[in-house]
């Protein structure tokens, strides 16, 4: 009987060691000591694929009063192409297709990557219209990243790209 109790103590000790250890170990290194992270994240609706057209007075008259608008825009929107370069080399890029059955939704972009800490030259360019060649939004900025720093690059149509 004493042997059985002793074995039980051994088993409970093993149980404690297993639970206690794996509840917080082994430690996981998510980010190297000299690394920082860059996150490019924003919501944006691409421009309409086709230009809006003016509605004539005759057409307007045929519409119910609550639906009369001076312009009519096709629903489909352009994909959003964005590229982030660091020190002249591509770092992040994507072409985000507008969601929705009629390609009429805004896109949500969330891209992240780790980079070495230190000073870097960032260039961002974005195209949000299939009717336009090249990039209609560009931004250049130098940023000094501390180890473990998270550089959040946001975008809105009023301010363009914003480093946070």
């Amino acid at each position, binding site marked *: 009987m004493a042997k059985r109790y002793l074995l039980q103590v051994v088993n409970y000790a093993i149980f404690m060691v297993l*639970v206690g250890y794996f509840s917080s170990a082994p430690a*996981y290194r998510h980010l190297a000591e000299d690394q920082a992270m860059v996150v490019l994240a924003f919501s944006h609706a691409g421009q309409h694929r086709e230009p809006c057209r003016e509605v004539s007075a005759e057409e307007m008259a045929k519409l119910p009063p609550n639906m009369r608008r001076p312009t009519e825009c096709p629903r489909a929107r352009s994909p959003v192409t964005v590229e982030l370069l660091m020190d002249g080399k591509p770092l992040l890029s994507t072409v985000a297709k507008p969601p929705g059955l009629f390609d009429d939704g805004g896109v949500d972009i969330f891209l992240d990557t780790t980079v070495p800490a230190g000073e870097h030259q960032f260039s961002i360019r974005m195209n949000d219209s299939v009717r336009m060649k090249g990039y209609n939004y560009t931004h250049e900025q130098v940023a000094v990243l501390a180890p473990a720093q998270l550089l959040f690059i946001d975008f809105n149509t009023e301010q363009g790209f914003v480093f946070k």
Partner: protein
Amino acid sequence: MSAAPIKRAYLVLENWFNLSFGSWNPLYHLGTLTFFFFWIVLVSGIYLFLFFHGSLDGAYASVERMTHEQWYAAGIMRSLHRYASDAAVGTILLHMFREFALDRHHGARWYSWFTGVPLLWMVVTLGITGYWLVWDQLAQYIAIGSAKLMDVLPIFFGSMARNFLEGALSDRFFILIEFLHLLGQPMLLVFALWFHVRRLSNVSINPPRGLAIGSFLALLTLSLIKPAVSHDPADLTTVPQVLNLDWFYLNIYPLLDYWSAGSIWILTIGITFLLMILPWVPPRPAGAAAVVDLDNCDGCKQCFDDCPFDAITVQARTDGARHEREVVVDPALCAACGICVGSCHASNPFRKAEKELKTGIDMPQLPINQVRTMTDTAVAALTGDVKILVFGCNHGFDVTRLNSDDTIGLSLFCTGMIPPTLIEYALRKGADGVMVAGCRHADCYFRFGNRWMEKRLEGEQAPVLRKRADRRRITIQGGAETDHNVVEGALAAFRQELSRLEQVEPEESPHG
């Protein structure tokens, strides 16, 4: 018959725990231990909730206060909350491994397995939301990781991960997580647990008291030796570098550093799918369900009480017989164990000695009449000074390996299938002793077969062994496929005991 490698490995582990715990073997109580750990989690969680501030600024500070300023109460509660949660994942994984290794997930038992797999994910996600509430760097890490995983699902508008960037998070986040962790997920879990055990009867949710006390003391000791602590507070302008992950719950997150969120979903869903279809892989024919013979059923409902899988129901008599009730078998739920045959007092082999023995509920593939014939044949073939008949089951030790001139093993679906009168019958027909060698003690492939058998022999559960049967000539020694030494040793000891009886009481023949 040799055990498959996985089963053999499991049986070694089980044997080790049998040496240490006997019938308290934690492997026999993994389901109830899991329930017990949840009770600890529930009680400690309610206590922690009293002191928790569910806000962006208050969450971390309140957890720190509990951990350090009130270490003797809330601090211990926090550690118990974490360690009991971790232990629950351990028992769930072992529970799954055990059912798989012992092949207890096929046939009519598919339901418990199938409904059990999602439970694991429910428990894991419950733990994940618990970690969010601390709002330290670990919470930040898993919150962003979870958001990335959710963002690839086509069910949300907008980017959830973007919410965790500086300035986008508010206290409403905590209200959502508190609701999920404290109410939504636990309620869903309880509901799913009810589904999980729905096709089982006599479900126990409490482990043996000694095992519960021992487990609790172990967790309490661990809480005192190594209290659960937080990481540094969450800071959304930085990225956590080193994380002390709880690998019971958070093991999937490191994959996000190497794989896309979509790949992780494919992996997770793939593993879940494979686990859930296991009961049908490989396909195998189900055993024929028990059949009720109303001409021999008086509606005593003992089979209803004994059925481990809730396959039998009782209803008002439909055949106009004078009895009040009758039983009905649902073939979809019947695991074909035959325990009901052993429960039926009409399965008495002394009845209709010259005719076909019919009972109230029988197994079409091995009717009780055939079992009686097998018994007759086996006893008649026994020779030697001490003739022993061994009843075994198809899932424990292979009793036919014991066959010799003076010993014959008969393997049935389950030892619970044996009516006590059959043992008395074997003794009366010429056996000097009967050994019942089903699954290991306190364990049974069909949940209760050997337990009911023991109770019947001890006179604790109908149908009981009649007093005229010499109990000294009956022994029980369960054993798994790998337990040759144990069963053969017990047989040798039993033979010796029977020899001694023959010498002491030569005139008292058991043969009537």
